[in-house]
């Protein structure tokens, strides 16, 4: 590997924004009463190094275009990877035909013109440096992450590898109110997945990673490898425990799943359909007074930051839960209209279909105690480092998932445990968040510090 590569997708001559505007224009000429076009273009690089040797190397780029058209209150969408004149014509034609079979929905439509716009200034979402490393050094980054994990302890004898990824993407949105917006985002990550083996032959695997929008902010390969080794080694010799009712502490890697459940619960789509146990609870206490949950699509350099949402509305900061009181749902234009509210600029737009709802930078505000202090206060309890499965029912709040982690004895992490379940009901679980750690760190658009929950059932022997 001595060659660096040329950009792998040819750039459009006219630029993506004018392609999108042209599609909107042609949809309107074709009889649409409103139209919206999205164009995505991206490049990806990834490599996995396993046991010191390159295992995979992938590099490519792609792009796609999607259009949503309205005939009054009827709408339909189509998409294509074919940017030729014939390909775009075919996409438009089928959108206009498809809309005819859809129902009149009084709430359907693109946002009012006055609401459209884009945050100004540099949001620091794109950094050229993710592609600055020559090919061999990217491989070296992955190799070093794996090596640091393998060198950490003789019990680490195998590995699923170290990896390095870099990607960048450009997104354009245009609609028939004259909105046109565009942004670029970059991303890079390094990870290691070591496998440790104990004297009885039992194997355990865990992982660690660092992710950033800029290569300059990425953790070193050695830091990532060492942490992956630490997380893997502590699982060796894991045992089952007896069924118990004890306090549970969630590591940030798993506590963020609780934030995801809250997100699903306040998602306008679930709310208007009554498919969430949080529907109709606005202004009510749904969590402990220590719980504050924020969604903020505007944070500089954030993983969930965009200058405008999937419908072209400037992103904003929304307080979802304040001192345990549900203050706001998270909405797009459609679900806001259904509920008689204002959109919170959380529309997420894929290539096809109606816009969904996605988080900005969505997080639980940190408390003051360190994870160590939270664990130190527990005599007998469970520290969860991994959940398995998808056992949360947002309609009823019923919750039951597989888990593994460490057993807490007299304030210390005493021994690893596995093949157990954690069960309860989310309605009570959110009210029983008795401690919130100070260790908030964004490793994606959803983040939570360490939390302690009481009143859960641990299922075991």
């Amino acid at each position, binding site marked *: 590997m001595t060659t660096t590569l040329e950009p792998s997708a040819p750039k459009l001559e006219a630029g993506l924004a004018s392609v999108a505007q042209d599609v909107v224009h042609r949809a309107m000429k074709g009889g649409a009463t409103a139209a919206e076009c999205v164009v995505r273009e991206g490049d990806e690089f990834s490599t996995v190094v396993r046991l010191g040797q390159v*295992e995979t190397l992938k590099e490519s780029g792609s792009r796609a275009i999607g259009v949503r058209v309205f005939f009054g209150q009827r709408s339909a*969408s189509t998409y*294509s990877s074919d940017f030729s004149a014939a390909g775009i014509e075919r996409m438009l034609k089928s959108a206009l035909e498809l809309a005819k079979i859809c129902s009149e929905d009084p709430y359907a439509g693109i946002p009012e013109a006055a609401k459209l716009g884009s945050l100004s200034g540099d949001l620091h979402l794109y950094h050229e440096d993710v592609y600055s490393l020559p090919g061999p050094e990217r491989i070296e980054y992955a190799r070093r992450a794996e090596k640091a994990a393998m060198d950490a302890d003789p019990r680490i004898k195998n590995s699923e590898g170290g990896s390095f990824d870099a990607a960048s993407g450009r997104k354009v949105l245009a609609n028939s109110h004259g909105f046109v917006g565009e942004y670029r985002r970059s991303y890079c990550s390094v990870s290691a997945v070591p496998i440790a083996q104990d004297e009885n032959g039992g194997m355990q*695997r865990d992982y660690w990673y660092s992710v950033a929008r800029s290569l300059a902010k990425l953790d070193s390969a050695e830091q990532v490898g060492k942490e992956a080794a630490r997380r893997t080694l502590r699982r060796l010799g894991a045992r089952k425990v007896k069924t118990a009712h004890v306090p549970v502490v969630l590591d940030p890697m798993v506590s963020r799943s609780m934030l995801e459940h809250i997100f699903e619960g306040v998602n306008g789509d679930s709310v208007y359909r009554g498919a969430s146990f949080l529907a109709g609870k606005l202004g009510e206490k749904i969590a402990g007074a220590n719980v504050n949950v924020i969604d903020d699509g505007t944070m500089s350099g954030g993983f969930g930051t965009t200058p405008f949402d999937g419908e072209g509305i400037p992103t904003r900061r929304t307080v979802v839960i304040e001192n345990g009181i549900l203050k706001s749902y998270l909405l797009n234009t459609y679900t806001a209209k259904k509920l008689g509210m204002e959109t919170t600029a959380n529309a997420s737009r894929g290539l096809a279909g109606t816009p969904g709802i996605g988080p900005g930078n969505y997080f639980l505000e940190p408390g003051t105690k360190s994870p160590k202090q939270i664990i130190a206060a527990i005599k007998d309890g469970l520290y969860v480092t991994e959940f*398995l499965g998808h056992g949360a029912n947002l309609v*009823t709040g019923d919750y039951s998932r597989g888990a593994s982690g460490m057993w807490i004895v007299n304030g210390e992490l005493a021994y690893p445990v596995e093949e157990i379940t954690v069960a309860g009901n989310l309605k009570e679980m959110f009210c029983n968040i008795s401690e919130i750690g100070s260790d908030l760190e964004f490793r994606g658009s959803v983040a939570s510090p360490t939390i302690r929950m009481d009143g859960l059932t641990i*299922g075991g*022997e």
Partner: protein
Amino acid sequence: MVTGHTGHTANQERFFFEHYGLTNQDLENYLAAALSAGGDYADLYFEYLTSTSLMVDESLVKSASQGISAGCGVRVVSGERTGYAYTDDLSPQRILHAARTAALIASAPAKTTVVGFQQKPARSLYPVTLPSVDADITAKVELLMRGDKTARGYDSRIKEVRANYSDELRNILVVGSDGTFAEDSQPLARMNVSCIAKTETSSGRGTSGGGGRVALDFFFGEKTPEFFAKEAARQAILQLDAREAPAGDMEVVLGPGWPGVLLHEAVGHGLEADFNRKKTSAFAGLIGKRVASEKCTVVDNGTMPWRRGSLNVDDEGQPTQETVLIENGILKGYLSDKLSSKLMGLADTGNGRRESYEHIPMPRMTNTYMLAGQDDPGDIIRSVKNGVYAVNFGGGQVDITNGKFVFSASEAYLIEDGKITAPIKGATLIGNGPDVLTRVSMVGNDLKLDEGVGTCGKDGQAVPVGVGIPTIKIDRMTVGGTAKREPGGFMQ
């Protein structure tokens, strides 16, 4: 040279030659570029995918979309290394660029490439004359409206209904430097109904769906919207009165069909050859060893007509087959793709699959199920003093290295003194893959495959799969409920 015949309908055969003007000479040139830096093997995967998706919510057709995506992925294998690049532009210049990019994985003199392609005879497991993507869209809307109506009419406590329909037609061409040449045209259709039931004090949800590599007429004949709607509504209503599920180790009986997701998670993934080649699976080195009770025989079978997990050829051009994984409790084999079969000296079982042209193929399951046994399902229930009878599941997950797996029951009942009693709330079941099947003490004579809804995720790639199982009894498994248990019964 292309030889051999497939049973495909005439209009799909030679799809890429007709639509993109590809010639055998082009393919040879692309493969030569892929092997220009050495490399042991190279292949090209051309894909042209058309898809439709419809949703009815609140009895309105709220969403309709259609799309086309096309591209070509180029893979170069050199020893254990894989180089991969793809393009969504099928012009010769872009494919050659992708080929040269993928070629960089190797560093040796150029290889002479293939001199002739050989098309192996393949099955015709899903010979639809009119793929559903080309069928009249109003007929698809009608399916959803019928589902919506039936679910709403089922019970006044059904408050919300959402019905979805999606279909696709995937045309593929795979050519390899070993002479591989395979074309296929793969239809896939699915419909789904989900319901929410409510009373003043309680709520429940239910979902049901099905499909396969079928034409639209499947939903007008074998499995109607009414069938799925009633099933979804029944589950939602049942949940209104569900009791707390028990917690801890107990006897578990799985009903037939979709609960076969147990096999997918507990043993299927752990038997994928890549994990065993790398010795990262809890099943590594266990071939010939007992991993299940002698009543258990588990197979993966990609050759079942019309099934969601079936394929005429896998995504490396290899015909699919029936592979015995566990025979009378003894571990017999792995699921392999080209790379692992070559490196491990095993036969290629035709399990090399990928999500799309953007993805590197790897060993994946097709339809995975346990063969029927001798026991009467009623006898199985009657043999249980205190346990759980689980008949419907959400998804599952496995850690292949330590073997721990979960699957989440969405419809389950208590068994008390040999009788099915109260419905219980959804609960996760957790176990250890290499030994859970050793505790299977009874296997029913009622093997059933699922309705055709499964999607399996591995390494970020989703592919359609099938599962199946007869009624089975597992002597001990951990149930993740919330109810406290007392000796001799469950306290509520």
